[in-house]
């Protein structure tokens, strides 16, 4: 690996241009691309307990149960499949994140870098639920789905890992990078009925 690779281009580079797309002066939704490092962690056979202990030790993170997400100081995790989690990290912790996870879990887990394989969007605002409901079959009502909940689903026929991050409500939407432009097109079309503002990537 080179010592310091140049800044990569996101799959939404040039697609998600910052700006307001308001209806009647209102833009109650915000859309922001996030660029965390992502690593898929799959426990080896009968090693889920060891993996969980290693992640707890290294990142102070309790790997979440099905349908849930968890966050700690340096990393967060979403349950995506039996004995499998999508881990993410920002800032300094993002550097060679997959390598850091692998060194933590050793032969108890298989780790796969997914940083370039996914695009991450944060959709926030009161109409977010209604906008997502035009393409997402998951019940996002606050009685059912609250911050900390996650789902592996399809939205508008595109594989999507969905996590609620706050009660605004804000949802993180993680889609395959080759489908990011198609997903962005669908999402902004759905949001156009309410008005939205695209913020600079965080």
């Amino acid at each position, binding site marked *: 690996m080179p010592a310091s690779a140049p800044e990569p281009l996101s799959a939404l580079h*040039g697609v998600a241009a910052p700006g307001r797309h308001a209806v009647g002066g209102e833009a109650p939704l915000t859309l922001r691309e996030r660029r965390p490092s992502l690593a898929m962690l799959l426990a080896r056979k009968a090693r889920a307990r060891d993996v969980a202990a290693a992640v707890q030790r290294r990142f102070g993170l309790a790997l979440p149960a099905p349908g849930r997400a968890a966050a700690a100081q340096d990393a967060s995790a979403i349950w995506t499949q039996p004995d499998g989690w999508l881990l993410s990290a920002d800032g300094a912790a993002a550097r060679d994140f997959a390598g850091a996870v692998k060194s933590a879990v050793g032969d108890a887990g298989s780790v796969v870098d997914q940083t*370039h394989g996914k695009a991450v969007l944060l959709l926030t605002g009161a109409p977010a639920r209604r906008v997502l*409901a035009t393409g997402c079959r998951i019940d996002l009502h606050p009685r059912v789905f609250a911050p900390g909940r996650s789902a592996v689903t399809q939205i508008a026929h595109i594989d999507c890992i969905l996590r609620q991050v706050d009660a605004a409500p804000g949802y993180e939407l993680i889609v395959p990078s080759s489908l990011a432009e198609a997903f962005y097109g669908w999402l902004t079309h759905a949001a156009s009925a309410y008005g939205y503002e695209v913020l600079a990537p965080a």
Partner: protein
Amino acid sequence: MSRRLAGGGRVDRGARLRFSFDGDAYEGLRGDTLASALMANGVRLVGRSFKYHRPRGIVTAGPEEPNALVELRGGARREANTPMPVIELFDGLEARSQNRWPSLAFDLLSANDLIARFLPAGFYYKTFMWPASFWEKVYEPLIRRSAGLGSAARAPDPDRYETLHAHCDVLVVGSGATGLAAARAAAEAGARVILCEQDFELGGGLLLDPAHEAWRAGMIGALLRQSEATVLSRTSVFGYYDGNVLGAIERVADHLPVPPDHAPRQRFWMIRAREVVLATGALERLIALPDNDRPGVMLAGAALAYLRRFAVAPGERAVMFTNNDEAYDTAFALHDAGIEVAAIVDVRAATARAEPARQRGIDLRLGSVVLGVHGRRGVRGVTVAARDGANAKTLSADLLCVSGGHNPAIQLASQSRTAMRWDSAIAGFVPGESTQRQRSAGAARGLTGIASCARDGAAAGAAAAADAGFAAASGFDLPPDSAEPGTQVEAFWEVRSAGKAFVDLQNDVTADDIRLARREGYEHIEHAKRYTTLSMATDQGKTGGLVGAAVLAAARGEDVAAVGLPTYRPFAVPISFGAIAGHAVGKDFAPIRRTALHRWHERRGARFMEVGPWLRPAYYPQPGEENDAWASVLREARAVRQAVGLCDVSTLGKIDVQGRDAAVFLDRLYTNTFSTLPVGRARYGLMLREDGIVFDDGTTSRLADDHFFMTTTTVNAARVLEHMEYHAQTVWPDLDVQFCAVTDHWASMSLAGPQARATLAKAVEGLDLDNAAFPFMGVGDAAIAGCPVRIFRISFSGELAYEVATPAGHAERVWEAVLAAGRAHGIAPYGVEALGLLRIEKGHVAGPELTGHTTARDLGLERMLKKRGDYVGRVLAERPALADPDRPRLVGLRPVDRRARLRAGGHLVAAPGSAESLGWLASAMPSVELDCWVGLGLLARAESWRGKCLFVAFPLNDETTEVEVTHPHHVDPENARVRA
């Protein structure tokens, strides 16, 4: 003549709306439907019937309307077959009648009515049988023109349609007294409630009596105060599916000329409900009697609705024909509104409503029937008689109200697979035991009376909420019990006399048609339905379906309860295709996948082609090549054979395979062995399906003892991963192996050509490319332009080649660095077309050969089948037919006349004109190395043909081309170049 009354109704007399029907201008009021507005203007001929082109009028006041279907709007927004009673009037509405030519009043095809005895049930099946070739070209267009409904717009729909996935604890369908009470009871218990009402006003039957208005308004107000209640008017629930999934269409902007910006015209609600309350009410049924389709024949309840809700007198002089007490309400209401009621003709011998009828001075004829209707374009009179036909007398009238009793609206309950039960008290079918989490309430289960329906609705709503986990809250006031006598009905279906007595008005099915069907052997209700088309129109026979079943029962000498109704299926009401398609039209039909280099290809002016969900560059036209695709493709392919080219191959499926048993797993998955593959090397692998047919191929590399990197073909990527997960989870659950799709994480590019090493050497850091240090099938990590890359020395073109993979975010930088390094060598980016050309020249099989019918031997890949150890597909690949040595095998084909072109898809024959196919030409391209077209084909007894000539026949184009059978590797059969 029908007309607007001076007072009353729920129409806004201050809000006049202009509209047109068949080009004539009219005026209506806000609150009108198209049906009520036309009646207010004295219009009663509104359409022609489907088969006989008989004049038709408005029969109902709801979505069950069989006759009054119109085309709405114009241009791209034209829509067909909408029932007038559900069209909310708006200013500027344009409507046209259907199925008439040249005009509604004078219709040439009404001659069909005169020759009707030659057009019996099953007529089309009997008449248009021969010759078979005439069906598509002659008969069907003819039938469609003469028996058509409206015509659809041909231009793309300019409007937006939205899909919405909704969830609730209790879904209530219908907002009459039952539905409002159910929704309120459930919502006040704390349940999330959705209430759907097809009308633009909530209230159902409550809208027909001002005495109920205070209660209706109070209930709606209470419901709207519940934050978890969603109240949808203009929303028709059309389908009830498994798992309590229901479909509904909300007509968001159908009552406006053009939808507002960003608003959909219609919204498709897909509702997942824990509990469902069907408060769909009841539908009045007709009585079959001669000429019961004349304009001016109307169901009794509809006449009441037009009178009370829309303040329209449906006629000047009415006759009521009934078998039940409820119809008397209409007769009395008409009388009390000053409309003359010439007679009430009741089939029964006695009724509790006799006294009030006589008090009003109405001529009450008990034990009597209407024998027939006079007037062709509209009712002028009716003949009444005793049930035995005695004492026939003609009464002058312009309105015949008919009530054959009421059927609970069981369409949705039936779709939910609830079995129906005969209820003799109402002479109709009512829902039996529910099979899903659903209950019917109120009139939908045979109750009558506002008070008893409201009580039943409240109980159903509370019970549904309780079943969804919400304890009942305090109650609310119900409407007072009135002195309404329970309806008394006598099962009575048909007056048999000369003339057409319709049981299905929309499809022009008569009682005689039903009897004919039975005589011809179609005794079962499902057979009779299909033979006669009873209940098969867009109204699904809501007004006459049971009458048809009763006529069939009488003909069979059985009880209608034993005959039953045909199964109801979606759509309970017609809905538009636009609403179903939603956002998924045009380029949004399916999501498009783009590689990380997509924008570079766009900037370079690439022409794209669809490969599965992907857009890939087909070729890159250069100045002067804009109109000659072949020039680009051949130039790009030549660059690879003579210098060097670069191709985006990011779409190939890539799967990361890890685990202690990863090598064992791959040994079982592939027909060849991977456990012997050293770390840092790649190997070509072949996979079979369980049935022994070739599934997929690709190159898999070993990155560590317990870590492999697999590639698949572009189109099979998802299927291969599924295949692997299936085997890991169910067949060999003991193996420790994990998979992760990494197609999107890695961009990859193929650098191929004699100058590939020189080019790459200039760009790469940290990898010695010397042939000894990095041989064919080597794998190594390095950097290009400061970006991490993984380099595989593999080749698809047959040239010296390297595949460079880099994390997708670095793709453009690496791609441009490689192009820059190759500039001095004449590098060219090449697209999928050149890639295909090169692989055909080289004899590599791909999609056209991996058809799902070909075995490894067929493709000349038998060397890939290991002798020891099991693998998926091994056993079934040994089946005699698959092992037959005479099966078509892969061969190369070249035209004998070097200028001739080959066309993929042609059959291989021994002589021109031969009908015996020896195989086929699967792929063909012009070669840049051999100066002629080359192809790959599959040929039976291929060995005996090697070096000989045969013919490619393409009968569709009347082409026959003589070809020589060669080795499949047209280029470098020794495979020396890849190792150079």
